[in-house]
């Protein structure tokens, strides 16, 4: 199965998005080799540098508009629950413009997987602060320092009722793949926050490389422990960054509860 589209990649050299592309492609490839039909993949992205990813993977895709990935792929899932739908969003796209949708997708526990390219900056629009840009950071729109406190999306997702909340780092390909693999395997809403650098506008390469570490002995079935661990790193430029699954819970999904076994596309 050839997942290449032949489209020229226009990301800046060493952009974190490359690794996410590699990880996602590898996992899709893996699943197809294991017998999933390539026809049953449907991916979507919003708008941002990250969003170009749909042009780089040769499966069914919808290049949507800024912030609207969760409802778009939810619509696909409801139309045809046999599809494996994966959404790619940026921190601006997913936690900013479209934050309402990710909160509600989590709340509903619809069976979709959201991969957030969290470079903590608006890349494509050339470097304004994003919801996860640390306070004080100088950006194009805050040349004297960002006056906003940054969001902790792990906490936000826990607070929204997400049943699979994970963080990974774009510098750890294997870990990324494992998180994506598990996120897709999770029956229900899965969000994977990928901490990565934007080389051109917020190059935290060294910091992320040095400080990301895989959580051990964490009980991901305990919502209170998940919350506490989420508080360990607050999306600043200081301290260690725990990666791994913060929380996982199994419960009936929205699409199951809504469709009760129907497939609208095939009915």
């Amino acid at each position, binding site marked *: 199965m050839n997942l290449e589209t032949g489209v020229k990649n226009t990301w800046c050299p060493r952009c974190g998005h490359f690794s996410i592309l590699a990880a996602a492609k590898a996992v899709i490839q893996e699943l197809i080799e294991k017998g999933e039909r390539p026809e049953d993949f449907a991916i979507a992205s919003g708008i941002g540098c990250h969003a170009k990813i749909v042009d780089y993977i040769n*499966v069914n895709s919808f290049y949507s508009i800024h912030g609207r990935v969760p409802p778009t792929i939810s*619509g*696909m899932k409801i139309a045809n629950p046999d599809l494996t739908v994966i959404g790619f969003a940026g921190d601006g796209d997913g936690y900013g413009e479209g934050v309402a949708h990710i909160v509600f997708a989590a709340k509903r526990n619809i069976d979709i997987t959201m991969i957030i390219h969290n470079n903590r900056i608006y890349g494509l629009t050339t470097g304004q602060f994003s919801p996860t840009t640390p306070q004080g950071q100088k950006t194009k729109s805050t040349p004297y320092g960002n006056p906003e406190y940054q969001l902790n999306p792990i906490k936000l997702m826990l607070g929204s009722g997400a049943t699979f909340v994970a963080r990974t780092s774009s510098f750890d390909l294997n870990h990324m793949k494992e998180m994506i693999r598990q996120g897709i395997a999770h029956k229900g809403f899965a969000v994977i926050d990928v901490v990565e650098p934007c080389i051109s506008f917020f190059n935290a390469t060294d910091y992320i490389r040095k400080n990301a570490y895989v959580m051990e002995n964490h009980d991901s079935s305990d919502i209170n422990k998940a919350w506490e661990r989420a508080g360990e790193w607050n999306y600043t430029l200081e301290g260690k960054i725990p990666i791994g699954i913060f929380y996982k819970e199994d419960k009936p999904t929205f699409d199951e509860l809504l469709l009760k076994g129907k497939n*609208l596309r095939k009915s």
Partner: protein
Amino acid sequence: MDVSILVGGQAGDGIKQAGVIIAKIFNEIGYHVFIYDDYQSLVKGGHNFSIVRVSDEKVHSHNDHVDLLVAFNQDTIEKHKWRTKETIYDSDKVKTDGTGIPAQSWAKGKGSALLRNSIFIGAICKYTGVDLKIAESIIKNSFHKLLDENMEALKFGYDSVEKKHDFKKIGEPREVMTGNEAISLGAAAAGMKLYIAYPMTPASSILHYLAKYGEKLGVVTVQEENEIAVANMAVGSCFAGVRTMVGTSGGGFALMTETVSLCAQSETPVLFVVSQRAGPSTGVPTYTMQADLKFVLNAGHGDVTRVVIAPGDAEESYLLTGKTMNLAWKYQIPGFVLVDKHISESTFSAELGEVKPEEPKLWDGKGEYGRYKLTEDGISPMAFPGDVYTCKGSSYEHDEKGLTVEEETDMINKMQEKRLRKMEVLREELKGEETVKVYGNPDSKVTLLTWGSTKGACIEAAKELGLKVVQLLYLEPMPMWELEKHLKGRVIAVEVNATGQLADILGIKEKILKYDGRPFTPEELKKKLEEIL
């Protein structure tokens, strides 16, 4: 035979339901019915009324004068006494002339003030000479609580008044439905499998209706967190091959406009129902207006392709919603059903036409699939995830495979032209369809131009004055080829908005407007016409 009954009381009295049951009773014996509902943005208290018009001819509007006033409270008398000749009222709560029934005390004695409805319905049966059995069977099908008490109440009401009229069975019953029900049924008949909405008056009852009867119709309903999510979820489900409709009113539609443009660029056939209410902004939210016309016709950034239709009653709502669904899929463009509160929430007699899903141009399975193949008619064959793996939709300008194009100006031109070409083909197709309707005196020198909910009032006023009426069904593409034929001589546009939006688009100078949230009645329109003719 043309009789109007006004039932009035407070929100919470069940006035609306009473109106529907009265209409169904007369429908049962073969009459045409129309109900106008009037209520405010509150749940208990205030003043609600329904005017039920019963006629042996087709009717799509109510009149100012009513033949019988049924007053649940004193307020109804104060507000509507001028309209009527005869009155039946709750003598426990109302002081007036006419026939009083101690309804409140009787109903409370039986355990529920809501029984007053059945009392008055019984009274109306006697008054009009209709067999009480008809009311009994309708109430049995409508109410699920206190059935015995309701039967007693009917009887009590029946026995409390004198017979004044003698309505006989003149034919077989028709369907009785609101505009929103007709839209729901028309979409379902055209293959809708998914309805997505965020509640908003006067579109909400589509959601309620389909949530309740969806199982039977093969339709699933989803209520989303906001209108943006609604529209984009619909994009996702249409992309995955499922006919999807969304519904809202102007303010909610505003939030969908970014997605309208997405539908045009990505060629995704979402069907939008926009049911207008009195604006701007929140305005007078439970009243009617036709002031979102220009907004809907021009919504979305860029050169957006679309089809927009405006039904004027329940039958047209059914047929044209089905038609719009099919056209949207055939041409892969967003479709719009533009109505207003006066159609959505009014109740009509209806004989439904035939609607069925028409297959769009599908991919033949040969070669590698590309979503945006350039074709002569601009229409690219469709295929869906699950069937293929190279179906790539996009909001960006794109090549035939759906991959982004920024530098190749040639491809940009081709794709812009492809999208416009589809509209040319659609325009040609519509030349063979009924895009306007003409009523009244064909030789009249004066023509009333109507669209949507002013239809009923226009036809009746024109009939009395011997005028011609042209009703515009399609608003985009605008059927100029028909309008040029029919809009000759003196043309007067009749619209329920403050600026005369359709008149402005067509360059029509003379117009009769109304913008207090209330629809025209034929009487009122006739008076205004007489002033200027």
